[in-house]
């Protein structure tokens, strides 16, 4: 009988429930609440559910006391013992290798490329400028974050990339520059991307006049198949030669697009758009969520990341709209400045916001295809910005 009670006692002592009542147990409880809120936002409010749901559940799993599903200590330091990860690591440790080695974000980009129509951008190349202007949010936030004593230069660079409004790019930069902040940065980036329809319209309305918002743009010229096939090849060569560190992201994005536009590999395109994309999304979401352990997440740094991420988004949107206004003046009223806000990427949400705000002024105005140009240019622009941040010595 004693053996029975001893076994029950041991089980209770070793159980996660008991560990919840230790000194740091409350931290796990707070993380449960945060994960619960994110799960609620993903399911009930449909805030980026494809990624927010696995991220939130990964957050829950990693904070279960005693489960030891993820070992952040395996990935600390410059020299990672991959043998130890494979030998002693759990499921999440092994899946996390895809993040750590920079495999998942480029594969997600392959799927995005296979889904994206760059036609509006080819038809109106000036849209590239709006995609570049919206990246100002990244660099402005970099200055602000670098100014704050809480963040190192490399952390400032990782936080600033939230302004690119591009989840895979943010993860790709954060896993290199500030892996300890990866969870917070990913959660902030995806949360703000989900909140684009809430964040952007007030800024767009504040910076534009009624007359500017009502501008009807000329119809885009039709783009030939040859142009669509040449586009990914040209972009890959130009960007990879100019910013080699952006090559994995841009290369895979453009490979996906070339497969789509070639029209000869339908099976591969379907796989990249669906099965591969969905598998990687699950792996990426759950492992990024797993990095948000209580010790790392429940710090002042996370609050700072949330605030700085919002600043980056707002400045990016404002810079895009202001550049749109400049183009409105230069073209003598032919460009609607609202399409500038789509330059922050967040495809296709930001373009939809431009369309919606434009239609509020002029219900017969269709800005969507015009906004898709800066929108996809923003994806390329943020990948280039990421390449710059990765290539400069941030210490």
């Amino acid at each position, binding site marked *: 009988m004693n053996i029975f009670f001893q076994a029950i006692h041991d089980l209770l002592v070793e159980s996660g429930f008991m560990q919840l009542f230790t000194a740091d147990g409350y931290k796990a409880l707070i993380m449960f609440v945060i994960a619960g809120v994110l799960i609620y936002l993903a399911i009930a409010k449909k805030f980026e559910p494809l990624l927010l749901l696995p991220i939130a559940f990964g957050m829950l799993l990693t904070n279960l006391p005693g489960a030891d599903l993820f070992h952040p200590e395996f990935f600390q330091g410059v020299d990672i013992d991959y043998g130890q990860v494979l030998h002693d690591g759990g499921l999440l440790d092994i899946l996390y290798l895809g993040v750590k080695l920079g495999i998942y974000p480029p594969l997600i980009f392959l799927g995005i490329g296979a889904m994206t129509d760059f036609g509006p951008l080819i038809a109106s190349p000036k849209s590239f400028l709006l995609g570049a202007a919206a*990246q100002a949010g990244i660099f402005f936030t970099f200055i602000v974050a670098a100014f704050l004593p809480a963040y190192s230069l490399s952390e400032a660079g990782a936080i600033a990339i939230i302004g690119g409004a591009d989840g895979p790019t943010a993860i790709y930069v954060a896993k290199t520059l500030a892996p300890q902040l990866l969870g917070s940065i990913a959660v902030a980036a995806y949360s703000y991307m989900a909140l684009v329809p809430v964040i952007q319209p007030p800024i767009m309305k504040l910076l534009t006049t009624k007359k500017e918002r009502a501008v009807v743009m000329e119809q885009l010229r039709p783009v030939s198949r040859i*142009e669509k096939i040449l586009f990914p090849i040209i972009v890959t060569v130009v960007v990879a030669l100019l910013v080699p560190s952006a090559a994995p992201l841009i290369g895979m994005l453009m490979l996906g697009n070339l497969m789509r536009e070639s029209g000869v590999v339908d099976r591969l395109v379907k796989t990249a758009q669906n099965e591969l994309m969905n598998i990687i999304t699950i792996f990426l979401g759950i492992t990024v969520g797993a990095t948000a352990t209580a010790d790392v997440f429940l710090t002042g740094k996370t609050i700072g990341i949330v605030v700085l991420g919002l600043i980056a988004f707002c400045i990016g949107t404002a810079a895009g709209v202001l550049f749109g206004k400049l183009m409105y003046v230069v073209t003598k009223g032919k460009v609607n400045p609202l399409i500038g806000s789509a330059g922050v990427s967040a495809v296709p949400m930001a373009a939809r916001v431009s369309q919606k705000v434009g239609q509020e002024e002029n219900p017969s105005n269709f800005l969507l*295809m015009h906004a898709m140009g800066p929108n996809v240019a923003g994806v*390329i622009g943020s990948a280039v910005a990421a390449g710059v941040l990765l290539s400069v010595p941030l210490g």
Partner: protein
Amino acid sequence: MKEGFALNTDWGLIIGITFTGLTVVFLALLVLILCMKVMGIIMSCVQNKKHLKEEGRKPMSKELPLQKQGQDFDVPPEIVAVIAAAIAAEHPNEYPVAIHPVTASNDATTSAWKQAGILQNTQAFMKGVAL
């Protein structure tokens, strides 16, 4: 982590990175604009040449004059039939309806047909989630 508030910050490096970053982003995208412009010009030249070649092969015909933009043209009988059917369906057994000559509108910006076409083409982008 830095120890002092902005005092130990290497401002030269930060401003340098910011300036370099923005310049490289703009430069990369400007080069791409240039490439797209050149590609557009080459493609339009090739298409014009093709068009001229095809025109040269065609026998001269007076029966098919080219339609100028904004010029009135006959509406195909199928369209008239669709309009008539729509009106008849809207007012069944009320009164007889006669359709007088139908002309296409020149106002392309407000055309309901054009709007319906645009809506159909852009519907795909109005769905889905951000990535």
